[in-house]
Every structure is written in structure tokens, then in C-alpha cells.
């Protein structure tokens, strides 16, 4: 099967000049400029198959946006190969952009001062969408997102959630095969987030739209993606299935015990004295035991506690992907 996106050894370097400080520095800047080369993306390779939804994460400045900008044709790579939907994005820009949709959560692509529908009508012409397709798709989007209430409102008067829905519609009007989403749920409330995630699932299911999603909100990824790519310092640290990501990289597990008596904590602590696991007191009647999952099992921990104590309740938790990711960024994870 032909890949929707093919990236090979892709890199982007920026040359920025270092500004000196102060008046004398500013004067020097006029004549002598010291340049620095920053490697924003430093040789990454991956493929994305048609219909896949891929989560792309990384801390600020890791190279996420730069990658997306090269994939969408905004930036010309310093080296490496990009093919997307059969095009070289920056070279075949006019033909390529007709087949993709892009949503930047922080910026709208709609005309700020006029009604949403006017923007959509102009986009219809820009993307050569026939009037019939336009109406049909608008109807379909309306069923999923309930747009009609604010189609005639100027964009500047929309709430963030409404504006985001309109931006999604604007990006999908020409039924792109490839959709790039950058922080699509940033700043939205839970209901709006859910609505937008459902919408994206439906679009992906119905049209086989390939989606690359960059986000800081990992629950977006857990809801939508089976595959995750992690970038830091311009290099890919992980590329694989989300489930495997959690299994391989989640090292910690924790069991919470809800105690019956205040004095029970001392007893609990003495039980595990000398073991590698950590015993913490969260409040008077709650204790937490943290352990490495490949050393002990939660069953063993629970058995040991119950043999000596009566407790009100027990809760087992795995390390969340937030925490795993944080560990990766901080280079604390020995597996990487």
C-alpha cells in the first residue's frame, strides 16, 4: 500500500544571529553579526499509512511545529526527503495544498470581521468545491457539530469552542485526504473537547482521512490515536503503538490503601521496611505504595498488606502517559 506520508532523514536548520546586549552591543550588531545554527529537526524518518491517526508530541521547542511546517509545505527542508500524498510539499505547493487541511488551534484562518458563512463561501471558491458538494458537506458538518446557530455570526464574536468547530469545517470543506491538527482542543471545556474528538473520529472513519495531531493534551491522543511519535531536541525518541508505549515505558505502578485507623500507617511502613518500594502517607487515612512493575506485582503488595491489616478500600493505578512522557523529556527513563 502506498504511504500517505513518507519522511526520510528530514532536517531543518535555522541560522539566527546572536544579538549583543546594551547600546554598544546594538552598535556592534550593525557591523559584525555572529551567526548560530540551530538544528530544529535533526534527521527524522517515519511513514504514515492512509487512514492512520497519529499523535505527535514533544515539549516546546522540540521540533514539532517545524516538522509540521515542512510537511505542509511552509518550510523548505535543509536536507532529507518528504513526500505527502504523492507530492513534495514545498515544491508542488499549489496542487498539494488542495489535498490537505490544516488547523492551528491558536490561530484562525477565517476572516475575523465577517460572518463565518462568508469565509466558508470564499474558501469554497479557493478550493474549487462545487456548490452542491459545499451544501451537502455543510449539512453533514452541521449534524455533527451544530453549526447553523452561529454561521451568520462574525468570527470575532464566537466563543473559542465555536471558532474551533468553524476552523475544522473550513479545513475539511474540500475533503482533504490528509489533515494536520495543531493543538485542536487547546483552551476548550470538556464538552467541547469531547464533541471535537467525536467529530474527528467520525471524519476519519467515514472518509479515511489521515490525521497527524500535535498536542500537549495527551488525553486527545489517548482518545484518538493508536500510534504515537515523541520528538525531543529534533530527534524522534519513540514511534510506535500507544499501548506498547505504555507497557514498555511505564515503569511505576502504585497501590493506594484507605486505612481504618490512624495508627495503621506505622504498621504498614514497618511491613515494607528494607524493600525497594516507596511508602508514602497522603493524609491521615490514605497511604500510597509505589513500586517498579518489573520487580513486584500489585498482587504481592496487596497480599502482604492484607495479611496484617484490615483496610477500607484499595486502588491500583498505572503511571499515566503524562508521567511517562514527562520522564522521557527529562531523560530519566533508562530504557531510552
Amino acid at each position, binding site marked *: 500500500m502506498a504511504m500517505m506520508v513518507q519522511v526520510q532523514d528530514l532536517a531543518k536548520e*535555522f541560522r539566527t544571529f546572536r544579538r549583543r546586549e546594551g547600546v554598544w552591543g546594538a552598535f556592534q550588531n550593525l557591523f559584525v553579526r555572529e551567526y548560530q545554527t540551530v538544528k530544529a529537526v535533526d534527521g527524522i524518518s517515519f511513514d504514515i499509512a492512509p487512514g492512520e491517526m497519529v499523535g505527535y508530541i514533544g515539549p516546546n521547542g522540540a521540533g514539532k511545529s517545524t516538522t509540521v*511546517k515542512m510537511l505542509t509545505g511552509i*518550510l523548505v527542508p535543509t536536507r532529507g526527503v518528504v513526500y505527502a500524498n504523492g507530492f513534495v510539499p514545498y515544491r508542488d505547493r499549489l496542487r498539494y495544498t488542495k489535498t490537505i487541511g490544516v488547523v492551528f488551534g491558536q490561530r484562525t484562518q477565517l*476572516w475575523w*470581521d*465577517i460572518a463565518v458563512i*462568508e469565509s466558508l463561501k470564499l474558501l469554497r*471558491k479557493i478550493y*474549487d468545491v462545487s456548490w452542491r458538494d459545499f451544501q451537502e458537506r455543510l449539512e453533514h458538518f452541521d449534524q455533527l457539530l451544530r453549526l447553523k446557530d452561529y454561521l451568520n455570526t462574525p468570527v470575532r464574536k464566537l466563543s473559542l469552542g465555536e471558532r474551533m468547530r468553524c476552523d475544522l469545517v473550513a479545513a475539511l470543506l474540500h475533503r482533504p485526504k490528509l489533515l494536520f491538527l495543531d493543538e485542536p482542543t487547546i483552551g476548550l471545556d470538556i464538552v467541547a473537547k469531547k464533541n471535537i474528538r467525536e467529530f474527528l473520529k467520525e471524519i476519519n472513519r467515514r472518509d479515511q482521512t489521515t490525521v497527524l495531531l500535535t498536542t500537549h493534551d495527551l488525553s486527545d491522543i489517548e482518545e484518538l490515536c493508536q500510534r504515537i511519535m515523541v520528538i525531543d531536541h529534533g530527534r524522534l525518541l519513540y514511534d510506535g503503538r500507544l499501548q506498547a508505549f505504555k507497557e514498555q515505558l511505564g515503569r511505576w505502578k502504585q497501590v493506594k490503601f484507605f486505612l481504618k485507623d490512624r495508627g495503621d500507617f506505622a504498621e504498614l511502613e514497618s511491613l515494607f521496611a528494607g524493600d525497594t518500594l516507596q511508602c508514602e502517607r497522603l493524609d491521615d487515612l490514605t497511604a500510597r505504595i509505589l513500586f517498579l512493575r518489573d520487580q513486584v506485582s500489585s498482587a504481592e503488595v496487596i497480599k502482604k498488606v492484607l495479611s496484617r491489616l484490615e483496610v477500607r478500600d484499595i486502588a491500583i493505578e498505572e503511571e499515566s502517559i503524562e508521567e511517562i512522557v514527562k520522564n522521557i523529556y527529562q531523560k530519566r527513563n533508562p530504557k531510552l
Partner: protein
Amino acid sequence: MRKHLTLLSDYFTQYLKVRLSYKGDLVIAVLTSFLATVLALAFVLVLFSKIPTLQGWSFEEVLFLYGFSLLPLGLFNVVSLNLYDFGNLYIMEGKFDRILLRPVNSLFQVIFEEFRLESLQEVATGIAIVAYCSVKLNLSWRVQDLVLASSVVLCGSLIYLAVFLSLTSVSFWLEDRVGLVPPVFNLLTFGRYPISIYNGFVQFLLSWIIPFAFASFYPSARFLRRRDFDLYFYLIPVVAGLFFTLSTLVWRQGVRNYQSTGS
């Protein structure tokens, strides 16, 4: 190409809708343009009444040169708004990202996303002055003259566009390019006077480096029946085409060099 032509009217309609959504603003703009036209005419008459002749050019002839120069300049000003602010608006604020994401020529989008219709008052003022001087100087305008005049006016606008587009493109490499525009803009007024009053260097500069003389002086000389500049007159489309092509090449190179903002 054909798609872009229809899109031009769509972009223009979109601009009108935006303007019409602020009714008060629009009324004031129309009124001030009208006032500006009247004042500009009065100003020109006062100013030029002090200059009886200029190296063999009569008062009406010099006034004609001025009036004619307003035509290409006014048309250029209608579409040039985004060129001046390009560095701030498109590069610094990152609006250019969105431009590159649409299947439309990038220069086309930047130029036609904003208009300054008020500048049509400059064209109106120019036509009024040219008409007045034509009567005074007994110049007759046949239909073919009007067609010819319109085409060289368009070429003139294209020359202004080429010069300022090249300056704008510098923003792709340098953040602080603003310093370049005012001196060049001042040079623009030099093209309004008989080129023979300048020394050889300025004449060369205005003809072949920053060819403002081809946008206003050389075309007007022909309609004033000053035959010694005929050769330059026929070169107008060549110069306009050449400089415009060069400026679009600079633009294209700039787009390839575009670095986009942080995130």
C-alpha cells in the same frame, strides 16, 4: 490563471463585506477621501502658481506632469497596503503561514487581501488636473490616445509594484527592513518633474535602477507632444515587464527562504 482572475473579484467582494460591516467607518472614509481630493487640488494650484516655468516647461506642462503621475501612483496605492506592513503583519505575526497553506499564488493573496479604495481619490485628482491642463494647452485626446494612456498608466503601476515588492521581499531575510522604504518613496516624487532638470547620475538612476521616470515622466512627455522622449515611451512596457519579472523572482526566492515564527 483564469481561476486567479475570478478569485480577484471574490477577494475584492470579501474586502467590501468587511468594510461594509463597519458602516460608520466607511462613511467617514468616503467623506475624508472626498475632502482630501478637494484639498489636494487646491494645494496643487497654490503650489504651482509660484513656479511660472521650469527650464522651458510651462506652468501647465509641469502641472500636467504632476497630475499624470497621480494616476499610476493612485492605482498602485489601492493595492499596496499589505506591502508596507508585510514584515510586521505577515512575517512577525506569522500570517504568511496561512498564505502558504492555500492553493493560491502567495503574492496574489498578499496583495489582494487588503485594498485601499480611498486612494482612488488620487486617481480622480489626477484625472481632473490632466483634463484642466489639456484644455489650457489645447491637447486633444482621441480614443486611441486614451487606450494608450490607460496602458502606460497600468505599466506605471506595475513599475511601482515591482520596486516596492523587491523592497518588501527583503523582509524574508532581514527583520528590520523598514528603513529602506522612506528614501525610495521620496525618490518617487523625483519622477514627476522633467528629467532634463537633473544631473546625469539622477537621470540614470530614475531610468534604469529605480525606473520611476518610466512610470510618470516618460509617459506624460509623449502626451505633451514632447517628441524627444519617444524612444523611452516605447520602452515603457519592456521596462515594466522586466522589472516586474525580476521582482517576482526576488519574491519567490524570499518565499523559499521563509523561516516562519516560533510556533
